[in-house]
């Protein structure tokens, strides 16, 4: 057999922003952006979020902008 290993629980991830054109990436909407950060505030990588390269780039830029104007945290604070 060709060594095309399919993961046991493998599920093909689809970029949410490609699948749904009504979703927009905007640094002014921390709610959508927060979905793509960990609870510590890090940006979730593409291999986990399943975003396509284009949208991941846009997301990264939007998250960084949102952080600058204090809509998103740079890192978790306090007791964590």
């Amino acid at each position, binding site marked *: 057999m060709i060594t095309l290993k399919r*993961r*046991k*629980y*493998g*599920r093909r991830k689809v970029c949410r922003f490609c699948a749904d054109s009504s979703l927009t990436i905007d*640094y*002014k909407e*921390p*709610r959508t952006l*927060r*979905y793509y*950060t*960990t*609870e510590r505030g890090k940006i*979730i990588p593409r291999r*986990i*979020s399943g975003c396509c390269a284009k949208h991941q780039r846009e997301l990264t830029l939007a998250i960084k*902008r949102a*952080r*600058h*104007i*204090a*809509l*998103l*945290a*740079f890192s978790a*604070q306090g007791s964590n």
Partner: protein
Amino acid sequence: MRHYETIFIVHPELSEEDTAACVEKFRGILENGGAFMVKEDHWGRRRLAYVVKKQSKGYFVLFEYGASGAAVAELERNFKIDEQVIRYLTVKIADSFDEEAMAQRKAEAEAKKAAGVTAPAEPDEVDEDSDNDDNDDDDDDVRDRRRRDDDED
């Protein structure tokens, strides 16, 4: 003329009149520089994600306008000088600015505003509540994703 958008955060401990005067001042600076205002949005007092200049809240104002680069530079220079402004961010939306189309959009927005006067009245507490909700949602999502990640490895 290019199409820009600026968000700035005004010090939360200013009185309402002082905040209005501060916003008025910056709008004046833009208009003196030949800018065409499309939208002015007051998000009101919101909680900041982290402490900025020892403040955990801030009064957010959003300007959308068409202006030359020089006008934006002048606006940002004044932001730096003014201690009432604790953060600002300017983003270019488009390289070209269609004044007529924007004037039309502005008129429509104002007509809508006049039709539903009662709509824009949200106290800042609403924002905080929804923030908390979001955090709860997020935690679940992240855990979910972690689990998936483990499977892959």
